[in-house]
């Protein structure tokens, strides 16, 4: 009986995976194909068919509506978040690993607790806070909370990673009179480069796709980031589905390109230290 199940699985598995591939890929194909159609073409059935007239007009329309500017904003935000979150988390993890005494342990638990707290729980107070500090409607308003919320996971991953470094190495350097900074630069950094890059990438992706903070904490088109831009496009070009699809494609393009060329790095990033 068990063998029957096993053989059945062996035969059905590829079929199922094929089906799953189709389900995964079809919407993406749909986006791509639609973005190359004219609007009139889109209304002609079937929607998944090839365009009768291939066109890049949607892409130029999207680019002309200031898309490059939003793109630049997203790059700025995501890069800053990636770098800042990783730097700060490394310091925190270092502290935790180097000193298991009271203060540091409490700190670790504080970081861990933030792991599950949702952004929505803080967004209203953040709005009031950001207003009073005068950062409302700036990219800084988005970067700060995104960095903060990226820290719990990053700190946990780095802590687990740093704990793997043999204590003897730390002691050796300390005996030679090295201060914390030196240890960080010459020991920790080189050894944890993989983990650092992974988490930087992970946080970059998270910040790139974030919607809630930009939605609440900014308003002007100057500081608009890509998820907001895509959504705004549905209002502006709502009926022009091909244009919206072009916007979606453009906003996901960097990640797609990165995936195609640096697949292994991205996968490592996502596996991080969570396994």
């Amino acid at each position: 009986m068990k063998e029957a199940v096993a053989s059945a699985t062996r035969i059905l598995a590829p079929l199922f995976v094929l089906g799953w591939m189709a389900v995964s890929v079809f919407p993406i194909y749909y986006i791509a194909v639609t973005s190359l159609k004219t609007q009139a073409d889109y209304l002609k059935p079937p929607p998944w068919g090839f365009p009768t007239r291939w066109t890049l007009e949607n892409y130029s329309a999207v680019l002309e509506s200031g898309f490059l500017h939003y793109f630049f904003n997203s790059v700025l935000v995501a890069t800053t978040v990636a770098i800042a979150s990783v730097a700060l988390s490394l310091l925190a993890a270092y502290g935790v690993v180097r000193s298991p005494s009271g203060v540091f342990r409490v700190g670790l638990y504080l970081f861990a607790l933030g792991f599950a707290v949702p952004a929505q729980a803080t967004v209203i107070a953040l709005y009031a806070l950001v207003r009073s500090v005068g950062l409302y409607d700036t990219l800084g308003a988005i970067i700060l909370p995104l960095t903060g919320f990226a820290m719990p996971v990053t700190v946990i991953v780095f802590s687990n990673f740093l704990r793997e470094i043999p204590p003897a190495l730390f002691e050796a350097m300390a005996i030679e009179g090295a201060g914390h900074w030196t240890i960080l630069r010459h020991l920790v950094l080189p050894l944890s480069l993989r983990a650092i890059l992974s988490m930087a990438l992970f946080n970059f992706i998270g910040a790139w796709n974030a919607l809630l903070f930009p939605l609440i904490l900014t308003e002007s088109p100057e500081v608009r980031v890509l998820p907001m831009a895509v959504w705004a496009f549905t209002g502006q070009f709502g009926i022009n589905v091909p244009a919206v699809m072009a916007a979606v494609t453009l906003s996901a393009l960097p990640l797609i390109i990165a995936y195609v060329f640096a697949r292994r790095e991205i996968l490592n990033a996502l596996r991080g230290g969570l396994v």
Partner: protein
Amino acid sequence: MRKYILLGATLLFGSSPLAQNFEVWAINNWVIDQFFPKFIQEWNQKNPNAQARLIQFENDLYKQRLFVALGAKSGPDVFYNWGGGVLESYVKAGAVEDLTTSIDSAWKNRFLDLMWRGVTFSGRLYGVPSTEVQPVVWFYNKAVFRRLNLQPPQTWSQLLAAVDRIKAAGITPIVVAGGSKWPLLMYQEYLADRIGGPEVFEGIVANRPGAWRHPAMLRSAELIVQLAAKSPFQPGWESAQYGTGAIRALFATGRAAMQLMGVWEFGALVSEHPDFVKSGDLGWFAFPRVEGGRGDPRNLAGNFTNYFSVSSFSRNKSASIRFLRELSFSDEYVRFLLRNGAIPPTRDVGNLIRQEGAYPDWQGFVYGLVEKAPYYVLSWDQAMPPQLAQPYLDNLQLLFLRRISAQEFVDRMQRLADGLRQ
């Protein structure tokens, strides 16, 4: 490269715009999209020390953005709004500039008296009429009606009968963006008025005890249930959003027969489905009367018009007000509206329609409605305070979905209204 670093730093830590520039906030609609960029460009050329900047958001998003901005007291200088209870709540919070002294009689006489009603609170003026007069009417597809040998309904039962006939022919009788919810209230605002007259809604706005329990309110809810029971709407109506324009496409391609919507829909149809409009198959009729109803069938519901107001936090109020004045007196603006089938809220426009109107039948029809209407009720979700408007829309959708009965709808709304009175 340095430019980008500088730009980045500015974006990160906030910029300090020149005190003289000002922002004009509006929604995405064809009037703003097509006329304002050029108008603002010309203004900017003439006013180098007071540059205007247009910032637009999608309709539903706009309302929230405005609310957040005004709450941040960093609000826009000039902002588009619908007047009524929502604007009044902002006025009460001290966020809107009192324009009474800035509006001289020439300015006041430029527009129809009725139009000023939406921005008049305690006798003071808090906004300026703009865009078009926007009552709600029925649109219908003449080709479908011809094929089924139907006439535009003149009574509610005729409307229901038409729904049955159209549905039997396999066509969607009515399209509605139920997901956005506000299109649903158009049904109730007319029904309540047709059944019980203006006093029904006036009681609700004044939040008089028991206003929601007025028999006409209950009856209007019952009629809605009656309509909904026929499943007259397109599949997926309850999640359909107005902004995507899918509804419009269904209507324009003949897959649906009727739509109850504000007259701005005409302009949208012209720009998105010009062939349909040119074919002459686009028809219209006023909301039918309800048999046994006390309301005057000439009464209208909808937005008076849209307004522009100036926020109290504006850093350049004088330029903002001058900007609005120039907009109000712009004949080019009036002609632009007329050329696109809209009806400006301006006085004495009847002749102009005949001379300059691009769609004189349509425009004459709407202007005639506005001229003759004894009473004009403002869209309910704009007239009510926001604390009531949101739950109202939620409950209305539930009523259309027939998840709650007419009686329960009325009871819930009464409870909510009572809760606000304290």
